[in-house]
Structure formats: structure tokens, C-alpha cells
């Protein structure tokens, strides 16, 4: 059960960070007129197509003692980054980035432009328009972004294996633990964990779908578009 709790903790951290970073990034991507925007869009979407091992491999190099991220981390905190929980969080944030950013972009773009014009002529600046009009009307998209990044992080395997290693209580997440048990032919233990993960995931998704349905009734829109994108 230690591994399951670790996975939940990791997913919660990653979702929170992605929410904070994803909102400004998605707002910028939804509104920018910059000609080179497609380049950044491609970078954000890369984890959708790259095998987790490739992404994990590059993250491992970057986080290693001689990698740029690893060096920076060491300079800031005096510790190594590879094979730590913090390293795992950073890698997972990159890995789940499109799952948070894409529903947010869709939600922001879905807000009627005339409402933004109305807000401007009523004297509101861009920040106030964002907080009072865009964000409240994008709540279903925000919920989708959080749920998708949480669920995606909970289920990840390849990236964790590459950058986290397999340290009990630090980087051994539930998916790694299950794999280990199966390798050691401990099918009963693997089955127990797999069932716990299945049950937990189902309950979380059921709650979110129910909430989204209620929100959808109130705001007249639902944004589950990205489930189909994977």
C-alpha cells in the first residue's frame, strides 16, 4: 500500500503544479498572435507521441549530476535530482503537460469572443476579464485538465522507471511495484495492488464525471474532448 500512497502523492503534486503553470501557458497559447507559436505548441504536445522511455532517457540525462537540470538543482539545494521524488515530479510534469494544457486551451478558446469585447468596453482590463469572465466559464476545462494530469501521472510507468529507479518509499510507484511483483511471480500481491489502483481510478473518474455533468448543466458546456485525443 506504500506504493499506492506514493503514486497518489506524486499525482497530486503534479496536478497542482500543472494547474499553476498550465493556466498561464494555455492562456498565452490560446491568445498569442506570435508567428512561431506552432513551435511551442509542438513542444507541449511532444509527450503525446514520444515513447515514455525516450522522454525518460532525456530527462535522466538532464537530471544527472552533469546534466543542466541536475547541476542547477545541486546549486540551488545542494542535492542530487536523479532518483529522487523531486526528480520524479519534474519528469512527470513534463510528461503530463499536454494533458493539462490542451483542455485548458480548448476551454479558453471556447469562450465567446463577444463576451471579452463586452468586458473590455465595460472598462475591464485583460487580467480582470480573465478572472471574472474567462476562468469562470472555463471551469469544466480546468476540472478536465486536473483530472487528466492526475490520472495520467497515476498510471505512468516508463518515465518513472527511467528517472526514478526503484527506491522503496521514494520512487517505487504502484505501477512499478506491480511489475516487480509479477516478475517475482507474486501474483496475489500484484493482483491486490492492481485491484486497488483500478478501484481508486474508477471512483475518482466517476466522481469527476458526475461533477462535470452538474457543471455542464449550469454553464451549458462540457469539455471532455481530450479523452478522445489519446
Amino acid at each position, binding site marked *: 500500500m506504500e506504493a499506492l500512497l506514493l503514486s497518489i502523492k506524486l499525482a497530486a503534486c503534479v496536478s497542482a503544479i500543472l494547474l499553476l503553470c498550465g493556466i498561464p501557458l494555455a492562456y498565452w497559447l490560446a491568445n498569442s498572435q506570435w508567428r512561431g507559436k506552432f513551435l511551442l505548441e509542438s513542444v507541449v504536445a511532444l509527450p503525446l507521441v514520444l515513447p515514455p522511455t525516450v522522454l525518460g532517457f532525456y530527462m535522466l540525462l538532464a537530471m544527472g549530476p552533469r546534466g543542466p537540470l541536475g547541476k542547477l538543482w545541486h546549486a540551488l539545494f545542494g542535492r542530487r535530482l536523479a532518483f529522487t521524488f523531486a526528480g520524479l515530479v519534474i519528469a512527470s510534469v513534463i510528461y503530463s503537460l499536454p494533458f493539462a494544457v490542451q483542455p485548458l486551451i480548448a476551454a479558453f478558446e471556447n469562450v*465567446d469572443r*463577444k*463576451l471579452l*469585447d*463586452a*468586458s*473590455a*468596453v*465595460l*472598462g*475591464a*482590463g485583460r487580467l*480582470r476579464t480573465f478572472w*471574472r*469572465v474567462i476562468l*469562470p*466559464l472555463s471551469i469544466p476545462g480546468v476540472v478536465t485538465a486536473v483530472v487528466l494530469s492526475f490520472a495520467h501521472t497515476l498510471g505512468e510507468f516508463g518515465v518513472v522507471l527511467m528517472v526514478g529507479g526503484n527506491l522503496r518509499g521514494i520512487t517505487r510507484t504502484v505501477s512499478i511495484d506491480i511489475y516487480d511483483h509479477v516478475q517475482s511471480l507474486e501474483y496475489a500481491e500484484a493482483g491486490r495492488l492492481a485491484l486497488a489502483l483500478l478501484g481508486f481510478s474508477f471512483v475518482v473518474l466517476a466522481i469527476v464525471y458526475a461533477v462535470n455533468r452538474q457543471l455542464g448543466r449550469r*454553464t*451549458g458546456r462540457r469539455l471532455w474532448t481530450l479523452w478522445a485525443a489519446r
Partner: protein
Amino acid sequence: MDTVGGQVNSAALTAQVRKERRDSDTPFVLDVSVEIPPGITILFGPSGAGKSTLLDCLAGLVQPDAGQIAIGGDVLFDSSSRTNLPSQKRRIAYVFQSLALFPHMSVEDNVSYGLTHLQQQERRARALEVLAAFRVENLKTRKPEEISGGEKQRVALARSLVTLPRLLLLDEPLTGLDAELKAAIVDDLRAWNAAQRIPILYVTHTRDEVDALGERVIAMDHGHVVSAGTPQQVLDAPRRKRLAQAAGFENFLRGTVVDVREADGVMRVRLDASACEIEVPLGYAAAGSRAQIAIRAGDILLATEPPRGLSARNVLAGRIVSLDQRGTLMVARVDCGVVFTVHVTPGAARALALAPEQQVWLVLKTHSCHLVDD
């Protein structure tokens, strides 16, 4: 401009705007110069004339390529000095055709959205005051989706006027309402503006609204102002075909000028595809040149015997092709070599016992024939 105790000293809007749009299939250039005094001015023209683009430029939602926009002495936009006040600083109210009420806020929150600079208590008082002026204070806790179309239009007007703007832009805000409801809302708008006296620019493409709102009309087509004046001046003698169609002219006839009688102020035009000639007011045309004439179906008299002793110069013999009732109107199609559309009342149709195939005579007054350009 000063705001003293809620009273606003009104000032006229002056704007010279040039804006090129290349994004659509047909390139479009808006190039107008207008002056809008306090009170209601109607901006009239067919769809695609550039009315909404002009409003967007005035509100700062679209940046003109060149020009100057000022209210009184306060410059909002000036391409020569690179002045461009953002929308939120212009103090211009804009009611969109879609109204754009915030769907997640109550009516009261919608109305007080533009009042953040005020204390909570003052904000509430002002919002309730304007809601009362537009007779919707009982809806303050409702969401926009829970109120009717007419109520939404009232709330949208209240929301934009509560900020005491210097100019009000209305982009067909009352479409889809019946005439009575429309008139009631316009009365409330006039009552509100009696105290404020700000310029109001009201966009429409329907003739009925122009007649109901009166005062001044600016007619636009293809991105240009084509005429300005009272509704009678602008709409009863439109100079362009598209405008004439929008203003309710049903008959368009092409022909060739055969004779110009300057002393009489008239010229004779031979209609294409028929031998008949009609007399029309003198225009800028020489004998032999082409002309297009617009005539309202309601301006044509219909007789069942050859009329005699008339002042009207144009009498054409023809035959009724069809006769249809549309509401309280009989629409007759009469073939005089060219087919005319003629409106008569159902009572007149009965009294004259009009029927298809019947021989009739059409009488056109010279000054009911308007020369128009394409």
C-alpha cells in the same frame, strides 16, 4: 468632459476612419467620415455595408488603418500622432447584436460589472437605479438564460448605460422583437438619454426601425457613407440600388435616356424589353446613356379603365399576371412589356374586381421614379 453629480456634459462624436479588410474573399475598404451629435442617429445600410466594422473601430475593438476618432475635444484614436486609447479606457458603451450578457452572472452582477471603481453600496444603488429605469429590477437575481429576449435586451442596455458612457453604440440590439415591445424599449432609452444627452449610434438594416426612431439617418454601402439627413431625405430618394432594395423599393427598371428636357426638369427613358417610355426627374445623364429607375410598389396607381385628365405623366397599359394576398396587402404583378410589382389594398382589389388576365393601366408620378446607381 466632466462628470458632476452624475450629470454628463454631452459632446458630439467626430470620426474619420479608414480600415481595409483582406481576411474575407472580397476585399473590403471602410472609408467614412461622420459627425454624430447627441441624440439618436441611425446607421442604415444593407448587410456587409461596413456598419459593424465602423462600430468596432469606434469602440477600439478593431484598429483603423488611418484616421481620427474624437468625442468633443478628447481624442480616442489618431493615426498621425499614434494615439490609440484601449477599449476599456474609452468610456463608450456598446450593445452587440448577440447582447453578450455574461451567462454565469446574475442580472445585477452583469449590470454592476462596469462599476468596479465604486464602493459596494454605491455600486448596488446605481445598478438597481438603472434596472428600474429599464423596468427589469424584479429580475436582478436571475441568470440571463432564465429571462426572455426582450428582458435580455433591456438588461444589456442597462448594463452599458450604468457606466455613464460618452457614446452609445447599438448594433441591431432590438432585432427579433415585435414593434410594440421595440417601441417601449426605445421610449425608455429616450427617457434615459433626455438627462444624459449623449450621442447614440443605432445600427439597423430594416426600414421599419428607421421610421420608428426618426431623427437623423446616415446611409452606408460598400464601406462608404452614401447619404445623410432625415429619414425622408435619405430613404425616399436612395441613390444606390442596394440601398433602395433595403429601403423597400420593389421595382427596378433599366432603360435608355431618349430625351432630356432641362427646362421641364425631366427626361424620358425608354424601358428595355418594351416599347414604353416613362418620364423621370432630370438626372446626370445625356440622351443615349443608360439609366436605372427604382419605384416603390406602393407608389403605383392601378386603374381598370384608361385614365384621363391626370397630372401624372406616365400611364402604361398592361395585363395582370398574378394577384397574391400578403397580410393586409394585395401584391399584383402587371405585365406592361416589363413586369411591375404593384401594391393595392384588399378593399381596392375587391372594389375593382381585380383578377389575373385583366387589362389594367398603371399610373406613375414622375417624382415617384428615382434614378439609382448600381
